[in-house]
């Protein structure tokens, strides 16, 4: 599908603010895209039956039940339409289940501002979007070890930058604080993201907060 084709996207989310934010990004980035917004699972199924969609973007928590059930219904009705799960839930809790239920991708809403366009482009071309970590875990046997603390692989500088990000500081603030250049901090940031296999600032922040890294000052 070329970027000039008018995309038809069905957006299912019961939170108007989130819907508007997501629709904004889509309309700004994809010329002539149609974004049909619905707010419950029943409407999602009705619109899937009624029209042809290039992509369905689906929330997991809907007023009339779990998005996973809606996902399964959509797959029955239109097995070829890719479905992107867009959820407030961190990927580690739900990604596997959604892969099993036939989704083509999983994105957290917090990362939508940075990642959504890339993901939509990939999915409408028949691609998938899941974290490498979860794909590796798809075997039924899952081992959790202290390797779950990837920050321990960081250098002292990288770790410091991670903690500062976890405290909500911007790259330029961190640069000032550590008396280093913005470019140097950006390099540290890129390197630590790569080491930790993370894609967005939001993911980094979540990691720092859930491991309470910012607190041990």
């Amino acid at each position, binding site marked *: 599908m070329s970027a000039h084709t008018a995309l038809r996207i069905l957006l299912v989310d019961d939170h108007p603010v989130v819907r*508007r934010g997501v629709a904004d990004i889509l309309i700004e980035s994809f010329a002539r895209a149609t974004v049909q917004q619905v707010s419950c699972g029943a409407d999602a199924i009705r619109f899937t039956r009624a029209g042809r969609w290039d992509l369905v973007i689906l929330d997991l928590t809907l007023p009339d039940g779990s998005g996973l059930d809606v996902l399964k219904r959509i797959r029955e009705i239109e097995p070829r339409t890719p479905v992107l799960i867009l959820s407030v839930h961190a990927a580690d809790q739900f990604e596997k289940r959604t892969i099993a239920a036939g989704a083509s991708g999983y994105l957290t809403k917090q990362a939508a501002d940075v990642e959504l366009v890339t993901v939509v482009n990939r999915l409408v071309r028949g691609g998938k979007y899941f974290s490498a970590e979860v794909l590796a875990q798809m075997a039924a046997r899952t081992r959790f070890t202290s390797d779950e603390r990837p920050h321990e692989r960081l250098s002292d500088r990288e770790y410091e930058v991670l903690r500062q990000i976890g405290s909500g500081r911007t790259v330029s603030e961190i640069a000032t604080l550590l008396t280093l250049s913005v470019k140097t901090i950006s390099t540290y940031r890129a390197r630590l993201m790569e080491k930790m296999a993370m894609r967005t600032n939001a993911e980094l922040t979540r990691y720092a907060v859930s491991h309470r890294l910012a607190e041990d000052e």
Partner: protein
Amino acid sequence: MSSEQLRALTERIEQMREAERTRIARELHDELGQLLTGIKLDFAGAVRRLRELKPAGDVVDRVQSAMMQIDIAIAMVQRISGDLRPAALDHRDLGGAIEYEARLAAARSGLEIQVVNRVTNSVPPDAATAAFRIFQEALINAVRHARATRITARVVTRRAQLELYVRDNGVGLWDRGDSSASFGVLGMHERARHAGGRLVIRGRPGRGTLVAFCLPLGAER
């Protein structure tokens, strides 16, 4: 108060506690979390427009800094609600909830935890909650009282039965002596009984402990 009444009261308190946790976790995550996410997306839209206007000073930086604070708030909402009750439990995913808890516990304690998740049947919410809380308690006991370094958990549905096994390599017999451990163990037994299942805890000195929980899935109360 008779011991029967005491038991009924404990059950009731436990039920209320779970219901409250469920409600608070859901409101935090689904209401506050979504609201914060919406605000962040709004800011993101504002930044895109601001960039086109090329404003003087550090306006864009300021807004981006606000967005990062929102990321922190969202992460905190997730941490607090996940600690109360993992969302996977309310999406009928017992295996996922157990994996989530194992991942957190491994990160927190440095333990090695292996989970085999073969939940294929649908597990009713009360049964899933019972199994999950028993798993949590078994982890706590293994870390705190048995000084284990490795835990293997297996959760399976077989015919019409749910089975959960948690094995650790600690000192064994963590249900003796220590009173906080024995309260934990008592709680596990009560939970199993209330759910209509059977719990066996077997520890041997120096050879670890095995917790086995079996629950017929037809017998949901």
